[in-house]
């Protein structure tokens, strides 16, 4: 297999691995970790319900990431089909398609949840997005928009290499901020299952889980947008752009941690609000 074929096959393989991981069933150890992470105890009667919800969200997210990864391989596919046109597809929009897919998947996974209350009982307690995820992270995503716009304006005025790609960075930041806004309100406004029953804390944990996936993907997308918007300079002028690349890499790590590791207790978040 020559290098060009390998480069074309690699994105597809990675996409299939992502898809496979997203489709595999949740194990008992996964549920135990999830309960510990989000300070919730799943009643025996609700294990099936929680498992189905978590698996469906994971399927939606991984499917869209996989689609984005496959799209990201477009330059490599074109290199096999029509090498002269391959360069047309080698840009930051195609390259970050997987991140757009991740953010879209995280939003869609929350928006499509059709949850009905089990009893006609409501807690006299406003559900706010900051109950489910650190509000500081949300502010970082929102503040990224004006920062990325400023970087794009600088890049455009300097006409640095591929200056138009800076505006792809703006699109990324706007999509990240918009996705967080829409997704977090979908999470908070979703009907409560049964606030007075044992499933109440599980309901909160499911919301927090979705919020963490959403904000993590948005952080990674916004940071990548900032990296794409930064002007390309030589010499010492390259340092700020290099720093933004490091920030983007750190955002990927933070996304991983938010999606899999960071602990969050809705009960504690409300008590300290």
């Amino acid at each position: 297999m020559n290098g060009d074929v390998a480069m074309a096959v690699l994105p597809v393989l990675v996409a299939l691995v992502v898809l496979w991981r997203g489709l595999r069933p949740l194990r008992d150890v996964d549920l135990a970790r999830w309960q510990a992470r989000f300070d919730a105890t799943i009643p025996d009667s609700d294990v099936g319900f929680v498992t189905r919800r978590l698996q469906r969200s994971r399927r939606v997210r991984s499917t869209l990431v996989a689609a984005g990864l496959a799209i990201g391989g477009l330059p490599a596919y074109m290199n096999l089909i029509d090498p002269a046109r391959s360069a047309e597809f080698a840009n930051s929009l195609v390259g970050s398609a997987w991140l757009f897919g991740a953010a879209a998947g995280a939003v869609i996974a929350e928006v499509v949840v059709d949850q009905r209350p089990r009893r006609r009982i409501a807690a006299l307690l406003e559900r706010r997005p900051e109950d489910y995820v650190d509000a500081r992270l949300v502010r970082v995503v929102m503040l990224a928009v004006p920062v990325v716009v400023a970087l794009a304006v600088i890049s455009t005025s300097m006409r640095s290499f591929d200056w138009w790609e800076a505006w792809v960075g703006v699109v990324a930041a706007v999509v990240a901020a918009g996705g967080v806004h829409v997704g977090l309100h979908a999470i908070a406004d979703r009907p409560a299952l049964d606030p007075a029953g044992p499933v109440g804390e599980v309901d909160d944990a499911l919301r927090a889980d979705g919020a963490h996936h959403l904000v993590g993907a948005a952080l990674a997308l916004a940071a990548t947008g900032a990296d794409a918007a930064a002007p390309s300079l030589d010499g010492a002028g390259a340092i700020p752009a290099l720093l933004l690349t490091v920030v983007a890499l750190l955002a990927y790590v933070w996304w991983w941690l938010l999606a899999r590791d960071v602990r969050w207790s809705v009960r504690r978040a409300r008590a300290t609000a």
Partner: protein
Amino acid sequence: MITVSVDDTSPVPPFEQVRAQIARVITTGAVPAGARLPTVRQLAHDLGLAPNTVARAYRALEEADLVETRGRRGTIVASGAAGTPAPDDALRAAARDYLDAAARLGASADEALAALRAAATT
């Protein structure tokens, strides 16, 4: 946790049930002044009501000076609206909270009462 509920079998209209329950918890001091109430959309979704029904209840509460609506900042209990809970009301509210906590642990009301008696005698 303070809750409101809708009884489908009651002849009282849903908006009046919601209004009366919220008015009671405010005037007995169970919910302090400045506390934020759920948004119209959230309360409507949770109770299976139309948003306009909840909005009507909130308007009635605002006309009675029990709540203040602050647009995007939501609806809060008005200052001066919250009463000081009578000792009996506070005790009943505490008992309700305990029974809710026991229910979340999967205990029945009888089991919760037995645990309370055991704790009281030790």
